[in-house]
């Protein structure tokens, strides 16, 4: 006979076996595809490694070269910070504006919602190619429109190092559907009685937006800004496709053309890709990857920290 305590212990052991069994796909996946590669890339970041010969330990040399001697690294960093600083707020603004518009009609807003979400569905490669064409300075409809509107010397967009990033910013704004849906859900969750109470108090629409709507959807805005910054550092496909389309070369042919025109579309992840997989400098690419990881962590922590000051959560904390 088993004592009650033994029986309880057996049951607990069985329970943990079940849990482990259910978790096993993730446990294996986490160790093999996340934990090991992270540690390995940390090690590689202190080596020179070209895949053919063994990794050679060089200490902090990769990091030193990156920060002090590699102008292309800083160019990529500047471009990335630029597109985050311009693209993320602009996308959030447009998404918020359209989401507010969508809450206003009494009927028929579903159709608009579908249309405004649709660009998000366009595959990134197709969307990037389409925008290179739409913003073509000579044949594209955008500059024709600017021409008829009487704009003198409209921008060359993707063909000018000054304007090329704007083409990608507009591409991002066009694909703001997901952000808009998240904002819309937040807006529809604002309790009606708050607005009614404000009406009784004689609040203006602007005051209602500023003091009721905005505080209550700030978690949604916070969420989209955090993810926007983090994904900004991983920005790859659109820039890669656009720069190759301008250079007019087959995929993966000439590494020198990545980020054209004149390196204005050379973003962090693009440069990492070039270093790792066309130059096969695995050590350097790993060092870049770890800096990227630390930046991502820092951004997330910073935003979570500061959010306490301006994000309103209704009940409970973050998640």
């Amino acid at each position: 006979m088993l004592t009650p305590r033994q029986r309880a212990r057996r049951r607990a052991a069985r329970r943990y076996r079940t849990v482990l069994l259910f978790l096993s796909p993730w446990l294996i996946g986490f160790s093999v595809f996340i934990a090991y590669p992270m540690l390995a890339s940390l090690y590689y970041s202190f080596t020179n490694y070209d895949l053919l010969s063994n990794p050679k330990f060089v200490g902090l040399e990769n990091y030193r070269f990156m920060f002090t001697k590699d102008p292309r690294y800083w160019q990529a960093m500047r471009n990335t910070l630029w597109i985050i600083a311009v693209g993320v707020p602009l996308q959030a603004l447009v998404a918020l504006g359209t989401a507010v518009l969508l809450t206003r009609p009494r009927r028929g807003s579903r159709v608009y919602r579908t249309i405004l979400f649709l660009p998000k569905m366009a595959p990134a490669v197709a969307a990037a190619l389409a925008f290179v064409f739409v913003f073509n300075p000579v044949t594209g409809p955008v500059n024709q429109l600017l021409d008829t509107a009487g704009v003198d010397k409209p921008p060359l967009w993707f063909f000018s190092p000054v304007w090329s990033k704007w083409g990608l910013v507009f591409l991002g704004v066009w694909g703001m559907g997901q952000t808009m849906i998240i904002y819309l859900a937040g807006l529809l969750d604002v309790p009606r009685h708050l607005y009614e109470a404000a009406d009784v108090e004689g609040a203006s629409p602007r005051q209602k937006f500023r003091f009721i709507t905005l505080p209550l959807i700030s978690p949604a805005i916070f969420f989209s800004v955090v993810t926007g910054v983090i994904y900004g550092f991983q920005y790859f496909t659109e820039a890669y496709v656009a720069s190759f389309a301008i250079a007019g070369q087959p995929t993966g042919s000439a590494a020198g053309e990545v980020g054209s025109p004149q390196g204005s579309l050379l973003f962090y992840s693009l440069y990492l890709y070039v270093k790792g997989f066309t130059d096969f400098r695995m050590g350097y690419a790993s060092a870049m990857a770890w800096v990227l990881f630390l930046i991502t962590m820092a951004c997330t922590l910073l935003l979570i920290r500061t959010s306490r000051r301006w994000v309103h959560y209704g009940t409970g904390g973050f998640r």
Partner: protein
Amino acid sequence: MTVLAPRVDRESPAAVARIQRRPEPASVRRRRILIETGNHALLVAVSAIFLLPFVFIVLTSLMSDQQALTPALWPRPFHFSNYAEIFRQSPLLRYTWNTFVIAALSTVGVVVSCVPVAYALSLLEWRGRQATFLLVLATIMLPVQVTVVPLYIVFSRLDWIGTMKPLIVPLFFGDAFSIFLLRQFFLTIPQELLDAARVDGANEARVMTRVVVPLAKPAIAAIALFQFLYAWNDFFSPLLYLGENKHLWTLSLGLSDFRGHFHTQWNLTMAASVLFMLPVILVFFAAQRAFVEGVTLTGVKG
């Protein structure tokens, strides 16, 4: 789970009509119609701007290659033959099949592996559950670039570069985002339902497949849809692992190469883009509900 239809309680016309028997004054009515018209006018204008790029793509795909290089907007004459031409000039069918195989298999992998993990993280009680869940959450934000170099090295040792395996196999070992989304949904399932099945002698695997999975169909549909579309549209991983093996190229790779190969043939490039977008957009229309609910679920709810 937030559904984007809580408009019922706020403006249910039937309820309002029953209470407000008194007809509204003509001035109020006129004002209401005016505001409503204004809202629709604004939304029509914004929607038109968002649709225009699609219109340009379709129109250009129907032009001759010469005309696509002129500022003309309207195809004259219509070259429907462009759509046949792209199949002659590139192995589009093979690209489509490759893309489909990768997307379908990786979707199966995500569903099969993430359901039990999410189940353990939401409906089983054990110490360390919260900490494990936080670890899963933390990996959602992990940039692929951080792990890609060692993974590439491992895959190249296994001789997997130039095969579909690196794009499929890892998905059979859980995907943090899908686990998160499923867990959020599982938490809304009442424990009583599970306990009833347990009292009847069902083990956890049976509870999961017989009770939870049928109830969680919308959430499972959402993660399957997300993964399928992600794999369908993905460019970075196919470029990395399939770049050298043209035989296994996906549509993303094929299309990005199109422009390089057919330098000035924007009409064909746009026709191929249309064919690439079309299935995605059709799937979106067919499954819009699951989709929007899924996106909402990933937001700040929960």
